[in-house]
């Protein structure tokens, strides 16, 4: 059972890496700026999931705080970028 758990964590890590690569493709290709912001937002979320999975992989609870910080920073950066796209300035 432990081996199956390990294999499923490996599968989840690999598919999250695949998701990060797909987000990177959209980030590089995106025709408009809002596509790039959307790809960046999804990239933050995928990296947060990746850090959570690393925490499960190493069996440590410390990774949870890194994931929480990544989620916070991703939200703030998405809001700032979306506000910038809307008006051309962040704080009016």
């Amino acid at each position, binding site marked *: *059972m*432990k081996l*199956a*758990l*390990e294999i*499923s*964590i490996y*599968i*989840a890590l690999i*598919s*999250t890496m*695949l*998701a990060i690569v*797909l*987000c990177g*493709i*959209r980030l590089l290709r995106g025709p*408009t*700026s*809002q*596509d790039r*912001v*959307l*790809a960046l*937002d*999804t990239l933050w*979320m*995928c990296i*947060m*999931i990746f850090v*959570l*999975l690393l*925490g*499960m*992989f*190493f*069996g*440590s*609870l410390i990774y*949870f705080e890194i*994931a*929480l910080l990544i*989620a*916070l920073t991703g*939200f703030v950066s*998405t*809001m700032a970028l*979306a*506000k910038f*796209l*809307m*008006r051309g300035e962040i704080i009016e």
Partner: protein
Amino acid sequence: MINMANDIPAWAAILVIFFLLLGSFIIVVGTLGLVRLGDFYQRIHGPAITITLGTGSVLIASMILFSSTHERLVIHELLITAFVFLTAPLGAMMMMRAAVYRGRRQQQRDESK
């Protein structure tokens, strides 16, 4: 590779495996939607699945795994769940509004030419 202090029961392992496989499938499907869909207004629906369902199932798997390995209730992952579920609609709404404003400005520029 996984450092477990004590073995986890079979039902917990099966639940963790189920939620991990579900979450990884949903994450790949959501980002595939981000790459494959045609328009920005269609494309914003793909990552929504990744953010809500994918994150949720991975967090549930993490909660079950740590609760069964540490032999106490480890539910501080609920903090991330609450935060992500509160902020994902806000970010989507801001991006959507920015896209609508930019599209309208582009249209006005095209008409004035």
